[in-house]
């Protein structure tokens, strides 16, 4: 039986068109896009075509607002540190939330050791930030608000438009880490009113190791990498052209397919959520019922630990990820799950199931059966399950 990938939040398979374009690009042996001769110009043309394709996906004003990076992590680091360094004369205060990705959290920690102060807002039990609290947290010293778009652990989407409007009214720059959203849900930078948007190609079936940062024209930002004048002086270093060409093709297809793609993914997710109670009791769904990524479900299975579930599902032929403390390597419960009010105990049994366009309804059914088998086995081993049953 073939292995079923239900871990599309970690990565996605390349679209066939993307693969073809990248193979063609390797075969073509492009020169350096910064070179002034004909071979360089040809490479530069390919680079700019990809930039236009990505700009189209985000509805940027001009392709110049797109900077290519090595992925979501670099984009986020660039946005936060670059804005902080370039605007430190105006103030040294940044507003964010408790549920950000480590790329945001650790970039901000680095800045704290450099004299910046950070206000990190809590979320309600559905995982959403109250925009009113963002407004209240902004001070005359605030130079940046950074709030994630779709959360990688719960799938919950923040009220980004409202938060962006608040930041704009207060003349504070607004960054959103949209690494898990761009290419999955329609995201129009002009509609949102964001100044900076981080994204990654592998979210929308492009290659890993390539991403981008949307920087609205006029935003004051320093490069993260100093060196040459590539990327309009915003990101030094010869571009990863093969990866960028792949990203461009993936972006063009995402822009074309985003509505049916989202509907297909949501169909799989809805089926899973509808049928889950028929196979398992005592599961907490951490994903917002309305405001969430169409492909992601976070489910905390009570009385079992996520890594065990993940390992047994792996044996059954299904790849999922878990946010249990034991499996994350950090040996601590996920800050996101604790922020939405889960107990340490319940957070331990949290699985992240992320559907992809390569999954089918039949796979969802087989997965539900496998999940039932695995959880039943582990609950039989668990001392917590028996205790809980006695209480009931």
């Amino acid at each position: 039986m073939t292995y079923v990938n239900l871990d599309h939040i970690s990565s996605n398979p390349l679209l066939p068109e993307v693969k073809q374009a990248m193979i063609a690009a390797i075969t073509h042996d492009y020169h350096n896009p910064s070179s002034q001769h004909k071979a360089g110009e040809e490479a530069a043309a390919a680079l700019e075509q990809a930039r236009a394709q990505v700009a189209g996906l985000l509805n940027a004003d001009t392709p110049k607002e797109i900077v290519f990076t090595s992925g979501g992590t670099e984009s986020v680091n660039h946005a936060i540190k670059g804005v902080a360094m370039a605007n430190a004369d105006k103030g040294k205060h940044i507003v964010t939330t408790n549920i950000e990705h480590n790329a945001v959290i650790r970039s901000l920690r680095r800045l704290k050791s450099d004299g910046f102060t950070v206000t990190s807002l809590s979320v309600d039990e559905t995982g959403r930030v109250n925009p009113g609290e963002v407004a209240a947290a902004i001070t005359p010293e605030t130079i940046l608000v950074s709030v994630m778009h779709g959360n990688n652990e719960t799938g919950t989407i923040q009220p980004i438009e409202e938060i962006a409007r608040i930041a704009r009214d207060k003349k504070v720059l607004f960054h959103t880490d949209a690494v898990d959203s761009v290419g999955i849900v329609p995201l129009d930078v002009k509609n949102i009113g964001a100044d900076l948007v981080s994204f990654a190609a592998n979210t929308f079936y492009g290659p890993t190791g390539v991403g981008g940062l949307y920087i609205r024209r006029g935003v004051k930002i320093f490069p993260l990498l100093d060196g040459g004048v590539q990327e309009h002086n915003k990101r030094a270093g010869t571009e990863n052209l093969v990866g960028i060409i792949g990203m461009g093709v993936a972006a063009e297809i995402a822009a074309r397919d985003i509505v049916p793609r989202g509907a297909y993914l949501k169909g799989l997710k809805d089926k899973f959520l509808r049928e889950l109670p028929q196979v398992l009791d005592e599961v907490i769904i951490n994903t917002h019922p309305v405001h969430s990524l169409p492909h992601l479900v976070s489910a905390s299975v009570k009385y079992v630990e996520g890594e065990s579930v993940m390992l047994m599902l792996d044996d059954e032929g299904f790849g999922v990820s878990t946010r249990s403390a034991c499996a994350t390597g950090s040996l601590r419960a996920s800050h996101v799950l604790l922020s939405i009010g889960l107990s340490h105990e319940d957070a331990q049994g949290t699985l992240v199931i992320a559907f992809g366009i390569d999954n089918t309804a039949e796979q969802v059914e087989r997965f539900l059966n496998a999940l039932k088998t695995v959880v039943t086995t582990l609950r039989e081993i668990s001392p917590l399950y028996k205790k809980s049953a006695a209480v009931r």
Partner: protein
Amino acid sequence: MMYNKVVMDHFRNPRNVGTLEDADGVGEVGNPLCGDMMTIYLKIKEDRIDDIKFQTFGCGSAIAVSSMLTEIAKGKRLAEAKKITNKDVAAALEGLPKNKLHCSNLGADALQLAIRDYEDRKAGITRPAPKRKDEHEHSHGDKCYCPYCDVEIDDGVTFCEACQHDLKEEH
């Protein structure tokens, strides 16, 4: 795969799972805060571990540790069983990932508590039922170690300067 074949075998086919209704001794360690809880049930006959069962809430290594411990302890005289350490269990499993050594390798502790429970009952000593701990607990001596790089760290620190890892209170 982060676990070796022996660990995966014990995780996939755990030995001696369950409870013993009329157990002579019961020992429970760990807390769900760290992610692992183990309960050991003993049946003692003529100073020997006649039967042993376990229940575990925890990761792959926690289940494998419990299973291996029961295999090592079964049939042993109490005097010998008292010498079993967490290190012995990890060695029998041919090693555990470094970051799991300090958290999920608690099987021998549960066994020792179960033996003490048996001896207490025999001597007619009643101790208050141990409360489930929700706080930081040292299961490995007085020192704290980073679960990632194993350097010694101070109690209560939340960040390992040596390897730049976030920590909570469970080191």
